[in-house]
């Protein structure tokens, strides 16, 4: 749903705006060193290294960069300096991502299970045998119980070959562990309803005030983070963060406001109320560009008083008022919100409330405001099969549906997702995946032995990101871009691109062509697939060559010596703003839809507390889980430099509260939810709300390999001698590898968006009892099931 933007227009506008802009002061003077784009051997020879475009697929930001190789080996990855969004910067994960190519624990030949599921006994088999087996099972399902019994659990950020395969065989059973796009389901839902777009981009580079609700920008959104960090110094921007704990973002904000979980919605609404009441709102904008009048809106918002917000959130009414006034008086100002707000029941409504703040102050798609996303929709190679699965279905309910028999499964494919670790009720997933009666055939398409792959019947090794031909676009800059990945190296062993694997499977299923499937899989190589994607994307039509050589298209210009501005002919390239003035908003009314629904049943932004959270007793806590800067759920687990930085996830607990409970720093504690408990260590901190405890995700591995499990001796039976890393073998120094919180997090679904309400889990924290061991997890899956059934009854 990207806005249609013509590149010409962009460049023209940019040049015009630049003519008035002052020439960047850093341009004159010193011979500065170049910011990147080349690489040299580090010792003696200083030989230059070869370079190819690379696209990091570890997170949905899809940053474009380069890989450098020497002697047939990739030596380094880094951001592309002339990329409008990346500006040469990769985060730590992206920088380390190329190491997965030489991960000695990766899977390099098709593996077939021998022995019981999950017993870890495997046999290497040939591709032909593996493909014949999969094709046979799929064909049997197609001829028997129907295409829908072939299911796909998909975790890729881009809709790609796997869903095309499902469309080819006509199965609608596609489940996603994450959105096949940027953002999360609740935010997307809120954006769509109000602005008609999937995502929004705060123009952090130019803003003077950021109101941030539950987004850990510095750790999870590097392309935004680099702009935010510039604004802090260049614009003397003020930054206020509402978060339940002190993330890096909160800790570096001018103000961190600890907020009671799930109460951001009411805080935002009351702020909007204050802004309207004090006459600080941009009434003209509201009247012209929304489907609700400013006077009506003021009236509607009047019910959300700062006092009411104080009661729910614990944030003082004066603070709320003060920040609301500051925010509304700052021009330009912007707001951002993410999982902290969305991952609750009512997440979508809370997101809408946050967006409303940008709307009432008129900070929509203006310089320094809350901008509409600009990116290209990458087309599917033509001819493409008709899409069978409509919309996006998140996968949380899947194991329960299978367990209680509402969903029949003959074959389950898993791709770029790791539900046995990263989904709620992960222990339930494992129970179901282990059960051969429920899931007769489980195929993993992936390069790593994940917790899920560990339970598969067949593992078909995929290539890793640096070995993949790829194309993507993501709304991370105010000028749209697309990036390409051109691999240097052939994957080691017999690993093969999933597109090739699927092509071969289709060729067997439709051997005689009677099923009319082969036509959709008629491409010579993954490189050609990408070429056809470019052809199917109108904006990129004449960009294939540039993409291949420069890695990014369009090329708006070159980066300046400060690394902050992209210059074209010596002047900074500036993005166009207020694009809606020309074409309106892509909503049914063409305006921002504050009021949803028909004339009669108007639904306005509102808030209702979560009954369980608002009634928690002393001694109970809300468990908050979060991501850290140097790990990406399961994709970075076995990368040594990242694991060295982050391998343990002790329980964050407020210092004073812990003292009251008699919990000392470092003491073993039991964290008990409705379904079971885990044992971990307490980390006493001043950086968390007293009624919240926090456990990070991404560690606590039972699979993946030596680094992930912090056990250098635990060798994978098929580990490749040529990929062995002596460094890991001899120098791995940490022992603590954390605990996974997801087993004790029961399913909880926000009805309006379908998103998992990750942060609604109520737990108790007690000192560990005799016999408890660090890392121990004890869960009763029948309780998980009971909670699911209860949830269903409510719907």
């Amino acid at each position, binding site marked *: 749903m990207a806005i249609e933007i013509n590149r010409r227009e962009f460049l023209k506008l940019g040049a015009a705006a630049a003519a008035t802009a002052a020439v960047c002061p850093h341009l004159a003077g010193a011979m500065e060193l170049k910011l990147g784009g080349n690489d040299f051997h580090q010792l003696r020879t200083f030989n230059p290294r070869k370079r190819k475009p690379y696209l990091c697929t570890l997170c949905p930001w899809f940053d474009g960069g380069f890989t450098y190789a020497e002697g047939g080996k990739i030596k380094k990855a880094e951001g592309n300096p002339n990329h409008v969004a990346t500006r040469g910067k990769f985060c730590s994960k992206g920088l380390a991502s190329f190491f997965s190519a030489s991960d000695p624990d990766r899977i390099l030949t098709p593996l077939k299970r021998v022995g019981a599921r999950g017993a870890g006994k495997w046999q290497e088999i040939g591709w032909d045998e593996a493909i014949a087996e999969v094709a046979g099972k799929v064909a049997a399902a197609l001829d028997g119980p129907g295409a829908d019994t072939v299911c796909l659990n998909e975790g890729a950020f881009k809709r790609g070959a796997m869903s095309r395969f499902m469309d080819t065989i006509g199965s609608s059973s596609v489940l996603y562990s994450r959105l096949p796009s940027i953002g999360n389901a609740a935010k997307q839902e809120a954006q769509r309803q109000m602005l008609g777009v999937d995502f929004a981009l705060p123009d952090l580079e130019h803003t003077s005030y950021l109101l941030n609700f539950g987004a850990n920008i510095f750790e999870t959104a590097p392309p935004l983070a680099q702009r935010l960090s510039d604004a802090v110094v260049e614009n003397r921007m003020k930054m206020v963060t509402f978060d339940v704990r002190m993330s890096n973002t909160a800790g570096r904000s001018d103000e961190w406001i600890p907020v009671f979980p799930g109460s951001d919605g009411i805080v935002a609404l009351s702020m909007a109320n204050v802004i309207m009441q004090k006459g600080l709102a941009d009434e003209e904008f509201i009247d012209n560009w929304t489907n609700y009048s400013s006077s009506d809106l003021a009236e509607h918002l009047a019910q959300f008083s700062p006092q009411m917000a104080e009661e729910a959130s614990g944030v003082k009414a004066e603070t709320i008022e003060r920040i609301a006034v500051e925010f509304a008086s700052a021009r330009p100002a912007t707001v951002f919100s993410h999982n902290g707000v969305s991952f609750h029941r009512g997440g979508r409504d809370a997101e809408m409330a946050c967006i409303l703040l940008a709307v009432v102050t008129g900070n929509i798609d203006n310089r320094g405001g809350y901008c509409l996303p600009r990116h290209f929709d990458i087309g599917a190679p033509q001819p493409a099969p008709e899409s069978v699965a409509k919309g996006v279905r998140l996968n949380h309910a899947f194991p329960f549906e299978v367990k209680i028999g509402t969903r029949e499964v003959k074959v389950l494919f898993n791709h770029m997702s790791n539900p046995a670790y990263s989904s709620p009720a992960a222990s339930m997933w494992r129970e179901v995946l282990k059960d051969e009666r429920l899931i007769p055939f489980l195929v993993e398409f992936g390069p790593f032995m994940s917790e899920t792959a560990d339970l598969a019947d067949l593992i078909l090794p995929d290539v890793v990101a640096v070995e993949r031909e790829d194309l993507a676009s993501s709304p991370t800059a105010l000028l749209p871009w697309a990036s390409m990945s051109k691999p240097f190296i052939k994957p080691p062993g017999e690993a093969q691109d999933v597109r090739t694997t699927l092509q071969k499977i289709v060729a067997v299923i439709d051997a005689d062509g009677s099923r009319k499937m082969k036509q959709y899989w008629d491409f010579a190589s993954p490189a050609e697939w990408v070429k056809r994607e470019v052809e199917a994307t109108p904006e990129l039509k004449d960009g294939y060559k540039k993409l291949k050589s420069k890695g990014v298209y369009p090329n708006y210009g070159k980066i300046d010596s400060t690394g902050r501005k992209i210059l074209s002919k010596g002047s900074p390239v500036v993005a166009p703003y207020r694009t809606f003035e020309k074409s309106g908003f892509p909503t049914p009314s063409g305006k921002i839809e504050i009021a949803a629904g028909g004339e009669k049943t108007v639904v306005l932004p509102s808030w209702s507390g979560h009954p369980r959270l608002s009634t928690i007793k002393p001694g109970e806590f809300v468990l908050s889980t979060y991501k850290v800067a140097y790990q990406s759920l399961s994709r970075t687990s076995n990368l040594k430099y990242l694991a060295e*930085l982050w391998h343990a996830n002790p329980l964050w607990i407020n210092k004073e509260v812990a003292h009251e409970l008699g919990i000392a720093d470092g003491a073993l504690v039991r964290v008990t939810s409705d379904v079971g408990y885990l044992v971990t260590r307490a980390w006493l901190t*001043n950086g968390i709300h007293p009624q919240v405890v926090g456990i990070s995700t991404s560690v606590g591995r039972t699979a993946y390999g030596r680094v992930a499990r912090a056990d250098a001796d635990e060798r994978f039976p098929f580990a490749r001698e040529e990929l062995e890393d002596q460094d890991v073998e001899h120098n791995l120094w940490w022992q603590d590898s954390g605990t996974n919180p997801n087993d004790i997090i029961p399913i909880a679904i926000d009805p309006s968006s379908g998103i998992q309400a990750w942060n609604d889990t109520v737990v108790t924290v007690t000192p560990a009892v005799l016999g408890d061991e660090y890392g121990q997890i004890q869960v009763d899956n029948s309780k998980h099931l009971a909670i699911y059934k209860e949830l269903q009854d409510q719907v």
Partner: protein
Amino acid sequence: MEESVVISNAFHHVAWGTPISIYFWLVGASAGSFVISSFGWVFGIKRYKPLALVASIQAIVMLLIVPILLIWDLGQPWRFFYLMLPAFWHNTAPMAWGALLILSYPVSMFIYTYFVIKNNQRWAKVLGIIAIILALSTHWYTGVVMELNPGRYMNHTALAPLLFLTGAFISGIGLLILVLWIMNMFVAPEKRIEWKLIEEMAQYMMIGIVFDMFLLFLEFMQTFYGAESTFIGHEIVLMELFRFPYLWLETVIGLVIPLLILVSPLKRFRWGVVTASFLVAVGVYGMRIWWVMGGQYMQSFY
């Protein structure tokens, strides 16, 4: 009150550990016993002449272990001779001087011992003077090596060489007394060293102990009274992690108890003197431990 916690897990290694601390101890004890050896031949205190051979052999043996220890502790042991290559020589590095000292001191000691055996007073005296200067320098330099690291707060004190020398003196004597006591049990009665002489040495040792305690007190004053860096070093590193070597081993076992023995009537018993000597020798090792590792330990988190 403001609170602050450091939460990064990038740690640093302690570069010098046990081998270095043992080496410091050995060099010291060697120098100490050599001083006694020189009493007779260099300073002309005749009654010490019978001791000289034993003492210098002891000094030589201890010093022979040193290069082995040091060389094996190098990252690149086979490059140890780089220290002596003129093209590599670096006159501002205490270590470079130390290498020369460690080599030349045993050589001079060998020759001195040869003349002692040959009963050549003239040359024994000349070599003895050279050797004693080298002995003292060798141990002085170990103090300097630690002292000239302004970043290691706890070692960066001008007292360091003196502390080392005093420690050397007392541990050398202590060890020598032990050796003589054992030797006396096995040799013919006429060859035994007179106990009176040993008692006299114990008196020197006592003086050394008192002086060492005085230095330690000065050091304590400086760390305790002085800047935050040294104060925390003392409070937390020495009194917590290194409490055993610092407080118990060095101060109590190595100084206080021997001193009490030596000032009390216990000194009249042979076992009293022997025990005191043993405790002193061991106690000085305690100092070498905290001195080498304690100062670096604080930096592990920096």
